């Protein structure tokens, strides 16, 4: 028994402390170093922040370069898929074009009316937009985020909205000097206040880690009253980060799942937008 324990201790000692010829560091020293890195990377000292920013800058750029072959494969797959779906897409587009003029007219009227009503309550919504290119599209199974080529030098700030055309896709969670990271709406940690229309209910849209989101924290009758085939989810503007009424996605067939309007796997260029609500007239 004692001998067995001795063998175990010897094996453990060799595992952690012994260096092989080609190894420059022992395993235990690197394990301790990684624990120190974990602790230090979460402290908010200025020096640590600067080092972190430097590491992020270098690694994001390198990752962008080394992701070129992967991105090419993605492009090819997308091209093949769009060729296969060409007829179906064409039919859908035809239906959309038929209704476009009618929708534009109605939209112009509603926009003007909305502006007038906001003026009456002394509220205005201004926005500043920065166009950014997606450097890294890292939709790993555990984290859904993108790295953009605009950072603090371009006045990007944490919390700014990320838009793909007019659709919301996420928000900035990390800002470096020349790049930034945005958390996509599909990430498990993403939660944004929304309005479900119809029946105009406040709720929270949460990411699931998959390609769709789910509705949380809403009235119980929401599920019972889901009689409409197509329910649209918009931002509610609560919290002050996003303006109200940005389209997020749609809930189809009483599934309770939000199908996002934007395809997060195909983001190349996005708008980083800061909304200033109620500041100027």
């Amino acid at each position: 028994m004692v001998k067995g324990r001795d063998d175990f201790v010897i094996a453990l000692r060799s595992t952690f402390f012994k260096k092989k010829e080609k190894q420059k560091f022992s395993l235990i020293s690197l394990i301790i170093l990684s624990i120190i890195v974990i602790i230090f990377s979460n402290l908010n000292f200025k020096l640590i922040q600067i080092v972190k920013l430097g590491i992020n800058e270098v690694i994001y750029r390198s990752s962008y370069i080394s992701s070129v072959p992967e991105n090419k494969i993605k492009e090819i797959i997308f091209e093949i898929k769009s060729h296969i779906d060409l007829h179906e897409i064409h039919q859908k587009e035809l239906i959309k074009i038929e209704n476009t003029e009618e929708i534009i007219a109605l939209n112009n009227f509603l926009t003007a009316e909305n502006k007038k009503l906001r003026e009456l309550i002394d509220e205005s919504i201004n926005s500043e937009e920065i166009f950014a290119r997606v450097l890294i599209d890292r939709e790993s199974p555990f984290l859904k985020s993108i790295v953009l080529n605009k950072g603090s030098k371009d006045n990007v700030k944490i919390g700014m909205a990320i838009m793909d055309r007019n659709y919301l896709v996420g928000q900035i969670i990390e800002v470096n000097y020349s790049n930034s990271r945005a958390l996509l709406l599909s990430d498990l940690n993403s939660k944004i206040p929304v309005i479900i229309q119809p029946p105009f209910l406040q709720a929270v849209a949460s990411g699931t880690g998959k390609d769709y989101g789910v509705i949380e924290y809403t009235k119980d009758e929401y599920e019972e009253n889901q009689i409409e085939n197509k329910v649209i989810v918009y931002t509610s503007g609560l919290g002050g980060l996003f303006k109200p009424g940005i389209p997020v996605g749609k809930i189809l067939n009483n599934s309770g799942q939000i199908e996002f309007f934007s395809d997060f796997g195909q983001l190349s260029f996005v708008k980083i937008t800061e909304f200033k609500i109620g500041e100027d007239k």
Partner: protein
Amino acid sequence: MASLNKSTFLKSFLSYLPIIFLFFSVFNEFDFNYLKLDYFSFNFIFILIFFWTLRNPDYLGYLSIFLAGIINDVVIGVPIGISSFCYLLICAITSYIRQITLSPKFINDWLSFIVTVLLINSIQVIILDLIFLYQVDYMDYLINAGFTFLFYPLFFLLFNILNSQISLKKND
């Protein structure tokens, strides 16, 4: 003379392949996510580190593994140091297995691998979920561990061929 130079180049290129694979994987987060297959992902880095540190640790240094972990954390956006810690724990396990094993067998390696992957994933989930309060999907981790376990024999075969090529070139 030319063939001698070619042989030397090939020899050193092959011996650097595990490190090249490692850094290429961490920069690209090799998990087949762009295939958009639901519930399909596997951790190539775990397989790579487990195999090479178990069978031929001379070609995959602990320092490179540590640096690869740091890069992986920055790329996927989790607190820096977690992946390094997990990768080095795999090294610790493989090193321990090496110490206590006289004649390595594939089936033993494979069974040790699933235990290692489950242990490392659990540690990662505990650190992310309980310490850093990141919300993680346990099912995703479990599925990832399952596919990583299933893919081990395939990569074992490929890496074994590479390993024998490196050893052959070394003994030439």
